[in-house]
C-alpha cells in the first residue's frame, strides 16, 4: 500500500480526518482566491493605465522626427464628476499615427469623440451646461478599450492647429514610453497581500492542524512499526496534498466570481472592466501550485517530533520551553522596518525602496508569530501561579504547555488588529491632510493664464455668460510675489484684489473693508524694505519697493489654508510696478449650485479648453480618494476579520478535538461543560488580549512610519485606534465560543469511540 492509498484509506474511514481535510480544502480555497485577487491588483492598475495612456500628457522622446500631432490635455468636471479631455490638431501627415485601442478615428476639426457615459450626459443636460464645451459634431464613440473604466467621462476634440489651447504641445504619437500605474493602489495591494495572505495561511494552518495530535499519534505508531521518515513524509504529503490541491482548484474555480465582485468596487472615480483582473496564465499556475505546496511543506515540517522521537510523540510528552530570544523578534524587525522607512524617505531612495518597505512590513508581520507564542507562554505561566478557579488553572496550564498551539487560535486576530490599527492610524492622518488649494472661496471657478490672454478670456467668458442669461461676471486677478526681510520665509504669494472683491471671492476674513487700502496678512509683517518681485525669465528678476508706511491689516485667521497667503489692495501696490509677462493671472467667476456648470462651460470655452479649477472640486477629489481608501480599508479589514475569526474558531475546535478523550472523561466524571467552555474561552482570549494590545501598538507605530513616507508631520491619532484591539478581543471570544458546541459534541459521543 503506497502513501496515497494509505491517505485515501484514512480519509475514507476516519470522519474527523475527513472534516479536517474539508476545512483545509476550504481554507486553501479562500487563500487561493484571495491571493489570485490581490496579486492581480497591480496587473489591473497596469491594464487600466495602459488603456488610458493616451489621456495622459507624455513627451516624444524623438525630437528629430516631425510631430504630426498637437495635443492638449485637461480635466473638466460636470455635476461633480471628473471628465478627461484631450484636444488634438493634425499638423502634418497623420497616416503614421497609431490610434489608441478603442478610438475609432482621429477626430477632424470640429468633431468630438465621446465616451458613452459622456455622450449620454450631453444628451440629458442643457447644452449650456455641457455640450457647448465641445465641438458640435459628435462624430463617434470611444470604446471600452480607450477608457480607464467603463463609466468614465472622456472625450477627444478635434481642432485646427490655430484653434488649439495655448498649452498644446507637439507630439509624434498619442503615447510614449510605459504607462504609470496607480502607485497608491499598487502599494495597497502589496500591503493587502501581506496582511490578508497571512491570516489566510493561518486559517489553512489551523485547518490542517485540526487533527494534528491524532495524526501525530498515528504517524508515530507507523514510524514505530518500522516506516522510514521518507515513507511517513510521503503519507503526510499525500494526506495534505489531496485536500490542499482540491482547495486550490476550488479557489481557482471561485476566482472569476471574486474578480467579478472586485470589478464593482470603485477606485479613482470608477469601477473596473471584467478583464482587468486577469492574471497571466503562467503566474496563475505558479500560485495555484505554490499555495498547496506551502501547506504540504508546513505539514511535513510539523512532523519533526515524529521523526526525532516517535516514542515521545506517541506518548505525548511535554514540549520544550520557548527561548527568551523570541522576544527580540519584534524590536529587530521593527528596527529593520524603521531603517527601510528612513531609507525610503531619504533623497537617495530608489525604485526598490517601496519593495524594501513592504519586505520590512512582511518581516514585522512574521515576527508576531515568533514572539506571540512566547507571550502566550508567559501569560500561561502567570495564570499557573495565580489561578483561583479550575478554568484559570486549565487555561494557564494549556497556554504554558502548548503556547504555539494556543497562539495559533489568535494569530489571525492579531494580524487583523495589526492591520486595523495601522489603517486607523493612516486614515485620520490622511483626512487631516485634506484641504489646501488657493485662497478663493470653494465655489469660485477660475482659469489660470498669462497677462497677455487674461482680458480676452474674461471678455469672452462674460459674453458667453450674458448669452446664457447669467448675471455673474468674471474678475481678472493678479498674483504677485512679495519679498520681505524675514529669515524664515524669503517671499510670499499675494492676490491683488480690493477688499470688497476679496470679501466676495476669497476666504480671507477681511472684515468690514473700512480700513485704508493696504496689505492684508494673517501675521505681523515687517514691510520695511519689502518689494514686489517681477520675473522676466532666465532667472532675471526685478524688485519694486513698497511705499514707506504701507499699512498691514492683520486678519483673524479663520482658515489655516490661507495662513501663508497675502492680499494686496491694488491701491497699495508700489508705484511704477510693471506687470511681468510671466506673472500669474487668474480669471475667476463666483458660482452657485444653479449656475456652476454654465459658468464652467463659459470659462472653458473662453479659454480654449483650458483647465477650469475650483477649490470645491479639489476637496471633492480629495474626498473621492479618501473614500476609495476608506472603502478598500473596510473591505480589507472585514476580510481579515472574517479570516481571523474563522481560523480562531477552527483552531479552538481543533484544540477540543485534540483533547476530546480527556474532555470526554472530565465531562463523564461530572465536570460541567460550562466550566470547560470557560477554560477554553479563557485559553483563547488571554493570549488574544495580550497579543492584540501588542499588535495594536505595533500597528500604530507602522502606520506612523508609513505616513511619514507621505508627510513628515501632521499625524493624527484618533481614539478609534483602540477599536481594533477591542474588536480583536471580541472576535477571539466569539470564535472561542465554538468550543461549547464542540464540547457538547464530545459529550454526545461514546467515550470508547476513538
Amino acid at each position, binding site marked *: 500500500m503506497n502513501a496515497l492509498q494509505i491517505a485515501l484509506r484514512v480519509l475514507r474511514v476516519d470522519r474527523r480526518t475527513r472534516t479536517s481535510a474539508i476545512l483545509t480544502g476550504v481554507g486553501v480555497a479562500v487563500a487561493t482566491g484571495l491571493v489570485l485577487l490581490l496579486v492581480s491588483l497591480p496587473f489591473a492598475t497596469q491594464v487600466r493605465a495602459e488603456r488610458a495612456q493616451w489621456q495622459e500628457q507624455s513627451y516624444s522622446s524623438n525630437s528629430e522626427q516631425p510631430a504630426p500631432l498637437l495635443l492638449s490635455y485637461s480635466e473638466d468636471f460636470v455635476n461633480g464628476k471628473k471628465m478627461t479631455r484631450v484636444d488634438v490638431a493634425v499638423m502634418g501627415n497623420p497616416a503614421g499615427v497609431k490610434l489608441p485601442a478603442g478610438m475609432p478615428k482621429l477626430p477632424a476639426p470640429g468633431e468630438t469623440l465621446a465616451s458613452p457615459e459622456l455622450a449620454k450626459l450631453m444628451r440629458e443636460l442643457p447644452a449650456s451646461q455641457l455640450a457647448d464645451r465641445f465641438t458640435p459634431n459628435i462624430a463617434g464613440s470611444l470604446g471600452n478599450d480607450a477608457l480607464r473604466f467603463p463609466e468614465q467621462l472622456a472625450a477627444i476634440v478635434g481642432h485646427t492647429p490655430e484653434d488649439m489651447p495655448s498649452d498644446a504641445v507637439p507630439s509624434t504619437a498619442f503615447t510614449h514610453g510605459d504607462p504609470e500605474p496607480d502607485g497608491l493602489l499598487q502599494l495597497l495591494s502589496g500591503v493587502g497581500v501581506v496582511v490578508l495572505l497571512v491570516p489566510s495561511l493561518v486559517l489553512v494552518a489551523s485547518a490542517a492542524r485540526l487533527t494534528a495530535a491524532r495524526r501525530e499519534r498515528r504517524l508515530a505508531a507507523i514510524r514505530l512499526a518500522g516506516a522510514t521518515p521518507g515513507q511517513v513524509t510521503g503519507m503526510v504529503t499525500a494526506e495534505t496534498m489531496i485536500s490542499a490541491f482540491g482547495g486550490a482548484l476550488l479557489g481557482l474555480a471561485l476566482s472569476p466570481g471574486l474578480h467579478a465582485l472586485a470589478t464593482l468596487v470603485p477606485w479613482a472615480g470608477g469601477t473596473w472592466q471584467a478583464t482587468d483582473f486577469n492574471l497571466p496564465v503562467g503566474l496563475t499556475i505558479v500560485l495555484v501550485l505554490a499555495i498547496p505546496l506551502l501547506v504540504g511543506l508546513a505539514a511535513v515540517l510539523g512532523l519533526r517530533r515524529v521523526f526525532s522521537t516517535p516514542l515521545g510523540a506517541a*506518548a*505525548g*510528552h*511535554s514540549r520544550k520551553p520557548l527561548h527568551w530570544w523570541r522576544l527580540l523578534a519584534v524590536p529587530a524587525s521593527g528596527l529593520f522596518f524603521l531603517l527601510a522607512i528612513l531609507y525610503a524617505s531619504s533623497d537617495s531612495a530608489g525604485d526598490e525602496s517601496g519593495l524594501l518597505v513592504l519586505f520590512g512590513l512582511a518581516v514585522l508581520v512574521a515576527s508576531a508569530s515568533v514572539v506571540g507564542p512566547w507571550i502566550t507562554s508567559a501569560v500561561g505561566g502567570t495564570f499557573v501561579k495565580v*489561578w*483561583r*478557579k*479550575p478554568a484559570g*488553572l*486549565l487555561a494557564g*496550564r*494549556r497556554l*504554558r*504547555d*502548548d503556547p504555539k498551539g494556543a497562539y495559533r487560535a489568535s494569530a489571525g486576530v492579531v494580524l487583523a488588529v495589526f492591520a486595523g490599527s495601522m489603517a486607523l492610524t493612516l486614515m485620520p492622518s490622511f483626512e487631516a491632510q485634506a484641504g489646501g488649494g488657493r485662497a478663493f472661496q470653494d465655489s469660485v471657478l477660475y482659469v489660470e493664464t498669462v497677462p497677455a490672454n487674461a482680458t480676452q478670456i474674461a471678455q469672452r467668458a462674460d459674453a458667453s455668460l450674458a448669452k446664457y442669461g447669467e448675471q455673474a461676471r468674471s474678475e481678472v486677478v493678479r498674483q504677485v510675489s512679495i519679498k520681505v526681510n524675514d529669515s524664515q520665509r524669503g517671499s510670499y504669494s499675494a492676490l491683488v484684489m480690493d477688499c470688497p472683491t476679496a470679501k466676495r471671492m476669497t476666504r480671507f476674513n477681511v472684515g468690514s473693508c473700512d480700513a485704508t487700502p493696504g496689505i492684508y496678512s494673517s501675521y505681523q509683517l515687517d514691510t520695511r524694505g519689502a518689494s514686489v518681485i517681477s520675473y522676466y525669465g532666465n532667472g532675471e528678476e526685478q524688485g519694486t519697493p513698497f511705499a514707506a508706511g504701507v499699512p498691514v491689516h492683520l486678519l483673524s485667521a479663520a482658515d489655516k489654508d490661507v495662513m501663508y497667503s497675502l492680499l494686496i489692495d491694488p491701491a497699495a501696490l508700489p508705484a511704477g510696478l510693471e506687470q511681468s509677462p510671466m506673472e500669474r493671472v487668474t480669471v475667476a467667476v463666483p458660482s452657485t449650485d444653479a449656475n456652476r456648470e454654465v459658468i464652467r462651460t463659459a470659462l472653458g470655452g473662453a479659454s480654449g479648453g483650458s483647465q477650469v479649477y475650483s477649490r470645491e472640486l479639489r476637496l471633492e477629489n480629495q474626498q473621492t480618494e479618501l473614500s476609495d481608501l476608506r472603502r478598500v480599508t473596510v473591505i480589507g479589514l472585514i476580510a481579515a476579520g472574517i479570516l481571523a475569526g474563522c481560523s480562531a474558531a477552527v483552531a479552538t475546535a481543533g484544540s477540543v478535538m485534540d*483533547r476530546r*478523550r*480527556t474532555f*470526554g*472523561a*472530565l*465531562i*463523564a*466524571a*461530572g*465536570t*460541567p461543560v460550562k*466550566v470547560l467552555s470557560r477554560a477554553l474561552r479563557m485559553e483563547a482570549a488571554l493570549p488574544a488580549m495580550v497579543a492584540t494590545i501588542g499588535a495594536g501598538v505595533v500597528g500604530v507605530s507602522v502606520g506612523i512610519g508609513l505616513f511619514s513616507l507621505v508627510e513628515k508631520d501632521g499625524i493624527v491619532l484618533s481614539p478609534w485606534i483602540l477599536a481594533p484591539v477591542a474588536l480583536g478581543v471580541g472576535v477571539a471570544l466569539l470564535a472561542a465560543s465554538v468550543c461549547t458546541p464542540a464540547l457538547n459534541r464530545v459529550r454526545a459521543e*461514546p*467515550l*470508547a469511540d476513538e
Partner: protein
Amino acid sequence: MDPRTPYAQSPNRTAVLSGRGLVKRYGTQHALAGIDIDIEAGDAVAIVGPSGSGKTSLLHVLAGILRADAGEIFLAGQRVDQLNEKKRSELRRTEFGFVFQSGMLVAELTAEENVALPLLLGGAGRKEAITAGREWLTRLGLAGKEGRRPGELSGGEAQRVAIARALTHRPKVIFADEPTGALDTRTGRDTMDALLHAAAESGAAVIVVTHDRELAESMPRTVSIRDGLIAARLAA
C-alpha cells in the same frame, strides 16, 4: 430462575446503587436488555463478559453518563435516572468517582492538580484542593511525584493518580472501566490492590468492568453479562 428478573422490582434498601429493568438500545441492537443489579456500600463488583456484551454500557448507564431507554436507577434509595443532565453531572461529580483505561488524566496538569480537579470543580479553594490532592497521592505511594505531568509518569503511576482523583472527593461509588487494560499483569494487580484498598478505606463501593479473568476472580463479587443480560452472578 429467569435471568431477566432475578431481583424484586423495588430497590434493595441496603444497596448504595441499584438498577432495575435497565434497557439500552443502539439502533435495533440491545446493549442492555433488562438488567437488575444492586451494589452494596463498600461492595467490590467485577462486571465481566465478552466484547459487545453490554458491560461498559451497564457501567455508563449506572453512572448516569448514558441515559437508559427503560428502567430505574436508585442511589441510596433515591431515584436518580430521571434527573436532568445538569443534576446527573453534579451527581457524578459529587457521589461517583471514575477510573478509565488509560487514566484520561489532563495532560497539561500536574499529578496533584489532576487529583485536586474534582474538588476544585466542586467549589473547593486552591489550597484545600491541592493539599487533599497531595495527601491522596502520598496514600497511593506517589509522594514526590506531585509535580509530574501524566506524560512523565509510568502507566501504573498514571493509573494510581487516576485512582487518587476518583477518591479525592470521597465518592459513594467508584466506576472503573478496564483500569488495568493498558498495564502489564503485575502492575495491573498492584493498581487494583491500590484501588480496592483505598476504596475500602474510604467506604466506597467499586464497580470494575474488565476483560481480565484473573482480575475478576480476585474481586469479592463478579457479575457476568452476555447479550445485554446478566448471565451469571458469582460471589467469592
